[in-house]
C-alpha cells in the first residue's frame, strides 16, 4: 500500500548532466550528490556521450529522465523505444527512471513537446494502464512528472493535482514533482500553486525538479533556461514542508551557464532545505556520491 511505496533514501542534491559540463564534472569531480541524465541523449551507439556517461556513472549515482515515452498517446506504446530505454537502464544502472504525464506523439509523428492531457477518468485509466505496462516491461516502478501547460480542455472534469494523484495511485507509480512547472501552470491557469502542493499525495513523491521560466506578464512559458526565480524558491520551501526531504535537482535545458553557476544555485537549494528541515534531516545528510564511493548500497 501507499505507506511503503517509497523505499529509497533521498539521494540529496543533484544536477541535470549536460554535454557542456562533461569535462568539468570529470576533471573536477564536484561535490554534487547525483546527476540526472536525459535518456534520449544517450540512446546512441557510442562516442563521447556514452563515454562520459560511463565515466561519470562510475563516480556518481545517476537517474534517467526521458521525454519520449508519450505515455498519454493513443498510439500503441513504442516498443522499440522501450527496448532502447531498457537497454540503456541495463548499461547505466540508474537509481530510478522517469518521464512525463503527457503525450508527445500521435500517428507516429512526434511533436517533441510535452503536450497536456485532458483530466478525465477515461484518461486516468488509459495512462495508468500504459504506465503499468511500462513498469512491467522495465521491471521497476517509474516516476512520472507533472508538465507545464498553457491550455485546458473542455473535456477535463478534474483538477490537475487530482489527475496526477489518480494516475499515480491507479498505476502504482511514483511522482516527480516539478516545482517550476506547478508555478508556471498556476500562473497560466490562475490557481494557487500551494493548493496543488497541498493536494498531491506525499507518499508517492520521490523527486523534485527546480528550474526557471520566462515571464511575459499575462502568461509564463516554461523555458527551463533561466536561474530559479524567487517565486519557485518560495514554492520549494513550501514543498519541503509538505513532502519532507525529497531528492532535489536543478534542471537547466537551455542557455546553459558555467557549471559553477549551477553549483551556486544548488547551494541555495541546500540552504533552503537546511533552514526548512534542519541540518540532520536525511536529505541534508544524504551523500549519494559518498555512499557510492564507500561501496554502500544506495537502494
Amino acid at each position: 500500500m501507499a505507506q511503503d511505496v517509497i523505499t529509497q533514501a533521498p539521494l540529496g542534491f543533484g544536477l541535470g548532466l549536460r554535454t557542456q559540463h562533461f569535462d568539468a564534472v570529470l576533471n573536477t569531480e564536484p561535490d554534487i550528490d547525483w546527476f540526472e541524465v536525459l535518456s534520449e541523449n544517450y540512446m546512441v551507439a557510442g562516442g563521447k556521450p556514452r563515454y562520459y556517461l560511463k565515466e561519470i556513472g562510475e563516480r556518481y549515482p545517476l537517474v534517467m529522465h526521458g521525454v519520449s515515452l508519450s505515455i498519454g498517446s493513443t498510439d500503441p506504446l513504442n516498443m522499440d523505444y522501450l527496448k532502447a530505454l531498457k537497454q540503456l537502464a541495463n548499461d547505466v544502472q540508474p537509481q530510478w527512471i522517469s518521464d512525463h504525464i503527457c503525450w508527445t506523439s500521435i500517428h507516429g509523428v512526434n511533436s517533441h513537446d510535452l503536450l497536456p492531457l485532458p483530466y478525465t477518468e477515461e484518461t486516468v485509466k488509459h495512462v495508468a494502464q500504459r504506465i503499468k505496462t511500462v513498469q512491467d516491461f522495465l521491471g521497476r516502478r517509474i516516476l512520472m512528472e507533472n508538465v507545464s501547460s498553457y491550455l485546458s480542455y473542455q473535456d477535463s472534469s478534474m483538477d490537475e493535482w487530482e489527475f496526477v494523484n489518480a494516475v499515480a495511485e491507479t498505476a502504482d507509480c511514483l511522482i516527480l514533482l516539478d516545482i517550476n512547472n506547478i508555478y508556471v501552470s498556476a500562473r497560466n491557469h490562475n490557481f494557487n500553486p500551494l493548493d496543488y502542493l497541498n493536494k498531491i499525495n506525499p507518499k508517492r513523491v520521490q523527486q523534485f525538479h527546480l528550474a526557471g521560466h520566462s515571464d511575459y506578464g499575462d502568461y509564463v512559458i516554461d523555458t527551463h533556461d533561466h536561474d530559479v526565480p524567487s517565486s519557485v524558491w518560495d514554492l520549494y520551501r513550501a514543498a519541503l514542508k509538505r513532502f519532507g526531504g525529497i531528492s532535489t535537482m536543478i534542471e537547466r535545458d537551455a542557455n546553459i551557464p558555467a557549471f559553477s553557476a549551477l553549483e551556486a544555485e544548488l547551494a541555495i537549494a541546500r540552504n533552503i532545505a537546511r533552514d526548512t528541515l534542519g541540518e540532520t534531516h536525511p536529505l541534508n545528510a544524504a551523500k549519494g556520491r559518498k555512499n557510492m564511493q564507500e561501496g554502500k548500497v544506495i537502494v
Partner: protein
Amino acid sequence: MSQLQQLQHAFMDYLLASAAVDTPPTLAQTTQTFKDKIAEQGGINADIRMQIYANAYRIRLTETLETDHEMLGIYLGDELFERMAKGYIASQPSAFTSLRSFADALPDYLTQDAFFSQYPIIADIARFERSLLNAFDAFDTERATFARLQALPAEQWPGCQLRFHPSVQLFQCNSNAVETWQALKQQASPPSPDYQGKRAWLLWRGESRLTEFISLSEYQLALLLGFIGGATFAEQCEMMLAFFSDAQAPMQVLQALQAWFQMGLIRDIA
C-alpha cells in the same frame, strides 16, 4: 475513435497546419476544430494559448537544425536558413523519439527542393555535417595495431582483409563543400562555390574521441573503398597498379595501412 484520440489528432493537425510553408486552405477549419476543444478560462484567450504550442513546435525543431547544422546556418544567413527550416519542418514531420535524428533527411530535402537544388553545395554541406554527427556517436570498438598485422606470417598477408572502426565514413561530393565548411569554422570568408571535379574525404573518430577528417587522393579513395568492400591485400596491390609501378604499388598499400592503423581506423584484421 475515442475522445482522447480525436483530441490528439486535432492538436497534431493544428501543429502541422500551423507549421506549413504556405497557409493551407484547411488551416481555418483545422484551427477551429482544435479550438472547439479548448476551454475558455479567463486570462489570455484560446488563440494565444494554442499559438504558444504552435510556436514551441516550430522553434524546437528550428533550434535542432541550428545545432546540427551550425556552419550551414552561417553559410545561408538568417533569411535563407529560415526558408530552409520552414520548408524542412513542413515537409518532414518528425517520426523519431530523439531530435538527434530529426534532420537526417535534410540533405535529401535540399537536393530535391526546387529552390535549394539550384545550389548543390548547400546539400553537400548538410550531408558533410550529418557525416560528422554520425562519426561523433558511432559505436565504440577496440582498435587493432599495426603490430598485429606485422605479427602475421608472411604467407597470410596476401589474403588478409580489414574491418574498419564503425565511425569511419567516406564523404564524396562534386563541390568545395568541405573547404567552405572549414573556412566558416575558422570564421573566414567562404570560397565561391566550385563544382570542378570530384572530391573525397575520410571522416572518423580517433582514440581521443575527437572527430577528424582528411582529404583523399584518388588512389587513397580507391584503396579505402576496396578494403571496405572486402578486398584482400593482394587484390589491393594489384588494383594499385592502375596508379603506381609494380615496385611502388605494394609499398603504397603498406604505407597507407600503417597510417590507417595509427589513425585508429582499423578495428580488426580478418
